[in-house]
């Protein structure tokens, strides 16, 4: 094997969960893989790679984004929040609601669901049932825990009042 002599990975300073991390990655690497492989934050999941399932949802400046389709080179100094940074100890009202309602089955998509829900509730703290459905429609749960996800978002909204 010949090492690639003239090519070096660029370095990026990423602000993740309030801490700045220096990482090397090729410029088109999606944020998802930088988080998982380089920063060892594996809470953010890989589902489809084309922004269709929502498993990889994180917050960028408070907005829910699909990290599988967000090249690391476009992030800059924007603040990233992942499931690991949502609270110190799982005490965010959305996390608490997820526990109270016992939402997960396999659990794989739930970090993405929670990240979508938290960004949504931050903007719409008192949503209607239809608004919850609209907001969560982009996140697939293959175990089909949709009824409980809906209930948990609604429960979290009440907790946050």
């Amino acid at each position, binding site marked *: *094997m010949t090492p*690639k002599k003239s*090519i070096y*990975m660029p370095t990026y300073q990423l602000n993740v969960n309030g801490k700045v991390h220096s990482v090397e*990655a*090729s410029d*088109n*690497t*999606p944020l998802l*893989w930088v988080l*998982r*492989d*380089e920063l060892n*934050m*594996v*809470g*953010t*999941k*890989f*589902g*489809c*790679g*084309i922004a*269709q*399932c929502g498993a990889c949802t994180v917050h960028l400046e408070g907005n829910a984004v699909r990290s599988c389709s967000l090249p690391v080179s476009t992030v800059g100094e924007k603040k990233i929040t*992942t*499931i*690991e940074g*949502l*609270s110190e*100890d*799982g005490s965010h009202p959305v*996390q608490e609601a*997820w*526990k109270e309602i*016992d939402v*997960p*089955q*396999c*659990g*794989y*998509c739930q*970090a993405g669901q*929670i990240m979508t829900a938290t960004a949504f509730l931050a903007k719409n703290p008192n949503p209607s049932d239809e608004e919850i*459905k*609209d907001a*969560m*429609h*982009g*996140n*697939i*749960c*293959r*175990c*089909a*825990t*949709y*009824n*409980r996800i*809906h209930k948990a978002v609604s429960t979290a909204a009440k907790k946050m009042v």
Partner: protein
Amino acid sequence: MSSTSNNIKFNRRAFLRTSSLASGGLLIGFNLFTACRPEAKPPVNLADLNYSDFNAFIKIAKNGAVTIFSPNPEIGQGVKTSMPMIIAEELDLPWNMVYVEQGHLDTKNYTRQVAGGSQSIRFGWDALRQTGATAKQMLINAAADKWGVDASEIKASEGIITNAAGETLGYGDVVEEAAKLEVPENVALKDPKDYKIIGTDQVNVDIDKIITGQPLFGLDYKVDGMVYASVLRPPAFGQELVSFDASAAKEVLGVIDVIEIGEKAKSLLSKEEINWTAQLSGTGKVVVIAKNTWAALEGKKALKAEWKEASPLESTDFHDKKLNELLDGKEFATLRKDGDVEKAFSQADKVLERTYESPFLPHNCMEPMNFFANITDDEIHLAGPIQTPEDAAITVAELLGRDVTDIKVEMTRMGGGFGRRLYGDFVYEVAEIADKIRKPVKMISSREDDMTTGVYRPAIKYRIKAAIKDGQLTGYQLKEAAINGNMYGLIPNFFPAGAVENYQVDVANYTSNITTGAWRAPYTNFLAYAEQSFFDELAEEMDADKIQLRLDLLEKVKGTTDERIQYSPERLQGVIKMAVDKSGWGSAPEGTYQGFVAYYCHNTHVAEVADVQIQNGLPVVKKVTCVVDCGIVVNRTGAINQVEGGVVDGIGHSMYGNYAFNKGVPEASNYDKYRLIRMKEAPVVETYFIENELSPTGLGEPTLPPAGGAVANALKAATGKRVYKQPFMLDKEIWKVTEKPVLG
């Protein structure tokens, strides 16, 4: 009807061993599957066993804390919570004193750790209770010795042992002594009326890790120095690798190497005993090894490969034609035959015949297939999500010519299974890769790899024919034409077997090079829709009430001595009656149309009523009322979650799931072209359990098959037209208004 003490035989001596822990405390081991499955043999000489030879344990520490190791793979079905609950109930502990850990596979000693067929709870029920009760009795006996009183004067409850004088000891206080005692015989089990944990709501034991994003799944598994592998497989079923050009791939930043695998798998293909895996293809595969996942996936995209046609490349229209030929032909195997159906048809006043069709389906576990391997001359370390860890270990040993005792398998939580992870193709791939590169490596599939090189639910057609004479159902014939194998086990003996004098089930098979296998509730996931649609048509043809027809037919099965008939007519009638009551059957508001299904599979009896409305020309499933008789409900919140998930999953796949092939190439490869049900399409599910004290049965599958049928019957009520083909939304006759749904 069976009581809570069911027919499963076990020998307590064969599964209980105790050991003192070096750190203090008691460890009780039990081999669940040796205990429960009559055909299972003890793995080794029982007299030589120590605690590590068992696949599940209770560990009681001196401080009274109890750890229960959960033996079975967790795929989202909830056994990691519900199985320990059963032990804790008989051990008589507060649930909050119990910690649950996932047991791992130890191929040196263990036997049979499998998730599949909704059987974990059913098979585990007796052994889990016995184990908890035996441990409790040993603690009581130790306390009796300590106090110098008879054990019968002592009671243990909520982790506290109390004697007649009111003195108390904690479990931890006597655990050292208990470990040295003989294992008692014939311990008494609790009366279900006294249950304190079974039947309550206990949150998933992994909940805190899930909601905070801690590593749990195979994809999260990582060791120092690990590299990543991405595998290029043939784009079409039937193709094999001729050659490849890796030059562009090697230019991708982060790519370490490109190798070829497949030779070892090919050499195993001739061995008949492992051919069931089906996924050991004879082709070479090109593997990109990289420093990270992205480089591995990008490297794979940059590969150039040439493929040849090793067997015919099949398309969906070809399968369609083949299945029709089979149904029209005479090459059937008969799986059940009562009376003379031909005679019944010839003497009938009316004969009703209908054909129902379903496509291939991919599993689409949210966690794509992946596995870790590290291979040295001393050890083969495997880790990841697999429903059949023991089979994987045995096959890897054969593949690499190694001793199975060299193999260690760690089971991670699985991001869904649905049957896909019964097949270890990805384990064999990573084993071959790791054997070549001799570095810790994880193989990761992209969604496209996962969806297009999968193991699919086979495309199937059912043709059902009924004879009606003098207003009675006198003959019933079910013909199945399927790809790569037919219905199995007791399925041919499901209702209405036993209710019709002349009854026959015939099956025919076409062998395809497209890999197929179990998909959540195999065969019944489609058969229930076909049969229950036919039942509605039958009732219409007979001018009979849809519910009453089912109840009357079930009446005829009562008292049957046919041992192949394991559904209970009484229990099926029970769920039917409750579903009628709870769903408001027959009194739906204007604009809401209902469809009814009653079905038995995976040892559980279910009735479902779907409420459907038509909005803007398209169907909306508003609500499903689901009544379940699964015997004792172990963990109520987990059980309801399984019921709801099964119903919504069943509706999603029957309405939207479509998977077609064009010259061996799958037409959909990701969620932009393949539609899974999402929140807005998910109906409200109202769940009711029949309350009884019968032995519990599993819930991972049985509510899925009826859901499609309930919707199909409601669609008929709403539109006047019947759907004969899944997915329902592809029916252009009915859905003239389209909003361009993505259907693949």
